[in-house]
């Protein structure tokens, strides 16, 4: 079973994140870059499935040069190889374009399953796995808290508001996982050493048979017209509980007509 895990490098959530006023895109140099947190769960799930069913795990990312650091980390967790779609023209690509580019890249890799995290901490759209399934014309098995593979049949438990849906599809399929699915492993020292010599293939737009006009800010299906720092919330009333804290809250809520 050959598995491709999608990985996105994102700014560290715990650092200050900024937009670049020049073109209203994410300022990727303003903060530390890390593997998108839920993608580590996707990598773990890929490794677990490989351990159970054999095959290879390939990490696929689209991102700037520095995304190689994150690819090496993913490889040190145990993935076999990586494919890095990197091209200056991709800067500012929207989710739909990203799915189209990833679909082209996947056409160069043999795979049975694509596994992604359910959400990136920077854009928080949660739609690239669905869009990728649409672009590839394969089953969308998203929001999985559990994945089971038997032959060419994949069954997931899709997390819902009130429980879960059991959803089934045939390979090749696109899966996205939520963080309750597993506990990602830490890279071992051996893994870190081994990762240094694992193959990382770079693909440009030309390699994918795409032209720069099809991607990037110019071709984006959405445009950020302007942005502003949200005004700080006006300072609230903070009181120390002197035995009537609960009553004080109720009075506040009543004054706002909230109860």
């Amino acid at each position, binding site marked *: 079973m050959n598995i491709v895990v999608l990985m996105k490098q994102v700014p560290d959530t715990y650092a200050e*994140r900024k937009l670049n006023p020049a073109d209203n895109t994410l300022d990727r140099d303003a903060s530390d870059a890390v593997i998108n947190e839920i993608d580590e769960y996707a990598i773990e799930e890929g490794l677990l499935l490989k351990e159970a069913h054999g095959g290879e795990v390939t990490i696929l990312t689209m991102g700037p040069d520095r995304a190689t650091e994150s690819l090496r980390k993913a490889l040190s967790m145990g993935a076999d190889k990586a494919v890095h779609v990197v091209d200056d023209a991709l800067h500012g690509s929207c989710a*739909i374009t990203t799915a189209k580019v990833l679909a082209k890249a996947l056409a160069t890799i043999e795979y049975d399953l694509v596994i992604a995290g359910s959400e990136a901490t920077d854009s928080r759209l949660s739609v690239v796995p669905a869009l990728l399934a649409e672009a590839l014309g394969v089953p969308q098995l998203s929001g999985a808290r559990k994945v089971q593979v038997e032959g060419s049949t994949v*069954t997931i438990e899709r*997390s819902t508001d*009130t429980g879960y849906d059991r959803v089934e599809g045939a390979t090749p399929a696109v899966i996205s996982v939520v*963080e309750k699915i597993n506990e990602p492993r830490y890279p071992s020292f051996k893994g870190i050493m081994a990762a240094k010599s694992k193959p990382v293939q770079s693909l440009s737009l030309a390699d994918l048979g795409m032209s720069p006009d099809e991607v990037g800010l110019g071709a984006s*299906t959405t445009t950020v017209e302007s942005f502003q720092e949200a005004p700080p919330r006006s300072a609230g009333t903070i009181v120390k509980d002197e035995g009537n804290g609960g009553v004080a809250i109720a009075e506040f809520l009543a004054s706002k007509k909230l109860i």
Partner: protein
Amino acid sequence: MAEVLVLVEAANGSLKKSTLELLTAARTLGEPSAVVIGAPGTAAALKDKLAEYGAAKVYVAESEEIDAYLVAPKAEVLAQIAKDAEPAAILVASNAENKEVAARTAFKLDSGFLADAVEITAEGSAKQSIFGGAVTVTSRVAKGVPVISLRANSVSAAPAPGTAEEVSVPVSLSEGAKAAKLLERVEEAKGSRPSLQDASVIVSGGRGVGSAENFSVVENVADSIGAAVGASRAATDAGWVPHQMQVGQTGVTVSPQLYIALGISGAIQHRAGMQTSKTIVAVNKDPEAPIFELADFGVVGDLFTVAPQLAEEVAKRKG
């Protein structure tokens, strides 16, 4: 006036509040048309209410096959209706499934998708709150029909009469739309509390709650106000409550009228999911907890004395 498609959501035969909000928001862009995609008989029960909230048309696309497969059928039917109607915009309520339906619809229409709008302007652009509420952006779709998901509680639903003229839409799904088969829908959550996504009031508990048993303190406050119950990641990671209840990054993003945080410190992880709440109340032992920077009203104290007193006082005032 331009037509605006609104994807209808219902549960147990009645419209979700978020659908009424969408119909209200749609009126700033044009004339709302409700789109009901579901099992046969779904629309009949909803039509009166759709008319009451301004639907000029109700597209009815009903088939047993819709709910037999995940997401793709709805996207296919919605795109098909949009191709014929050429609407000014398509609005859906922000939740995991609708966002996937919306994105796939935009893909099919060769247009664009704006997620999690907190406001939609008359020109069809959307305001979004990003980076955990630190930045507000104004975005628009660059080409084609804008497909926008709107966060619950972003507008107040207001009635306005509409004719709700029924337009029947034949459903014939492609094989591609039947790729992910829904085998079973399992309900785990018990009780009759409102869902987190839709609720106008949410009471959440965090690390300070201390155990699964203690979560009843949070639930009692929620039940006194008729609120949904949420949790911080510390509480879901500890296994005190199910993952579905997690508010924050990698969990649910909410924007209720009132958010009460009990024993939650307010890490960025959590703030990212609740910072756009209209009114925020916090109870925490630690006066330095970052949640107090957001709170409109905060009590520094022990939640195990403050919360029960609050629940009791609310009940008393209700009489």
